[in-house]
């Protein structure tokens, strides 16, 4: 006889608010949000987590997570997270930042938070463009890539070269876990979730600063289709921003998630 007992195998995480997001179709912010919410649920951290939202497309991230949240000034999320973590060391503190926020205006804050070994987790969305302001050149914009402020394509003679944050931060002794992943297909999304889990595990174990850089799409400002955006990540971004583990402290090496 066939069993008829229904079992829930997929549902909205408790940490994810039941609201519509304002993100564009094909944008991977929603995927990244959901992965974070799933990890926080699975680790049972929701009631002690305080998120720090950035300025950028994810400025309203606090509306989409069912947990305490603060909204930082542009680039200052790591400083704000530091301020919170130092007075609430038992709470779980994470920032969610884009490339303009983290790698341009907030460069000092991210570098020094990492150098101090702040026990916070940073989710870094690298989509190579400023989204909220309408598609300007970012510190991670690819050479030759057209944006509204590099209309003839990023000319490295004039505008320099993209910054690889995971590689840079991994050189700092204060970091415990620094990796780059991508959100362009299901296999990589699964790997991204594991990395986010590792970042929060790093914090819960007090092993220092953790960051997961996620290569992400922006079909609206890249001005290509959602499908082509995922291909663009795979074919154009991954070669420039290689996926991999840039820093995993020995205490984490044996951890399987």
């Amino acid at each position, binding site marked *: 006889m066939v069993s008829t007992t229904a079992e829930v195998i997929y549902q909205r995480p408790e940490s994810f608010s039941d609201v519509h997001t304002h993100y564009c179709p094909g944008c991977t912010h929603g995927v990244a949000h959901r992965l974070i919410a799933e990890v926080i649920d699975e680790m049972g951290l929701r009631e002690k987590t305080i998120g720090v939202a950035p300025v950028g497309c994810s400025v309203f991230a606090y509306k989409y997570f069912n947990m305490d*949240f603060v909204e*930082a000034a542009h680039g200052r999320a790591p400083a704000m997270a530091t301020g919170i973590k130092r*007075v609430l060391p038992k709470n779980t503190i994470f920032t969610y930042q884009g490339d303009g926020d983290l790698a341009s205006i907030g460069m000092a804050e991210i570098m020094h938070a990492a150098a101090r070994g702040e026990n916070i987790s940073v989710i870094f969305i690298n989509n190579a463009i400023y989204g909220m302001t309408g598609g300007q050149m970012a510190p991670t914009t690819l050479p030759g890539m057209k944006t509204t402020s590099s209309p003839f394509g990023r000319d490295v003679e004039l505008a320099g070269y993209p910054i690889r944050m995971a590689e840079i931060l991994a050189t700092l002794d204060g970091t415990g876990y620094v990796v780059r992943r991508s959100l362009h297909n299901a296999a990589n999304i699964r790997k991204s979730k594991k990395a986010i889990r590792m970042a929060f595990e790093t914090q819960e174990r007090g092993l220092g600063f953790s960051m997961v850089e996620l290569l992400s799409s922006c079909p609206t400002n890249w001005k290509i289709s959602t499908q082509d955006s995922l291909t663009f990540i795979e074919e154009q971004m991954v070669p420039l921003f290689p996926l991999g583990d840039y820093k995993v402290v020995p205490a984490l090496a044996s951890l399987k998630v």
Partner: protein
Amino acid sequence: MAKELLKGNHAFAEAAIRAGVEAFYGYPITPSTEFLEYMSRRMPSLGRAFVQAESEVSAINMVYGAACTGKRVMTASSSPGVSLMMEGISYIAGTEVPAVVVNVMRGGPGLGNIAPSQGDYYQMVKGGGHGDYFPIVLAPASVQEAIDYIGLAFDLAEKYRSIVHVIVDGNMGQMMEPAELPPMKDIPEKVPDWAVSGAKGRDPNNLTSIYIDPEDEEVTNLRLLKRWKEIEKNEVIFDEVEVEDAEILVIGFGTAGRVASSAIREAREEGIKAGLLRPITLAPFPQDRLLELTKQVKRILVVEMNSGMMLDDVMKIVQGRVPVEFYGRMGGVTPLPDEILDELRRVSANKDPGADDPRDEWIPRLEKKILGDK
């Protein structure tokens, strides 16, 4: 507790500790650096948070973060550093979280110098950061007063969920004076209901300064304005010296007010009936008291260590009821009691109705003083 000989910056820091400050985030800058140094020793030994930030921008954003947890948090800096903090100060004001900023002011603009000044009056009193908000500004004139008002600053910050500035000049940060510290206050265990602490057994708290719908922002602006009106009604503090029968009213805050009080005592010995109104809250300004005194006094002399910033507020309140004159030193120069005594002698003999802008008459006097007959 007995009086001790205390250095200004050290005393201010210890006063904050005894008021229950749980986090200090700062960046070194003369003439406030001893504040940070003192905190770097004391805070960790008490199990409280201290971070020397990578910049004043970071320091104030750390303050912003901790303020969102409802804990007592502060920073201390000096003029150019406070300029860098204005971003975070505006966010703190917009998010309606309490925080205390001490500005040990120095000569400016630009890099200026490290000598005492009151040149940040506009920046501190009128806002300084972007947007519609109203900081509370306390201007003590002695190490003891600073100790007392740093404690009050935290109370006011929490009562009104407001940014509170305590402004002193480099003299007060650097000098040593006998003063008495208050006893150590217990740190409250209860978290304010608006603070972030983890959404355990309650709905999430979101603390933000973004109101994307202009109508929502306007409601917020109105709330801040109405709160400010309450502050104006309830929190005015000032000090007076010999005003009962005064014919000349000197108005000065902080060090300038203190130097003026010495000059007033000497002027009294010469038969000049001078008195001092010393605003301690520069915001809210003691405007009702000043208006009342315009009915009594014949002339007003505003004394500042800047180009006449508080003077503008005085003129706005006095509105020609009494002639107003001005004496200021700028650039990090502290006026001597004799300079103000000379001014009092001059003012007591002056029968002119006064210029529309008192600075027009002061500039040549100052030039003569600086350049002599060169």
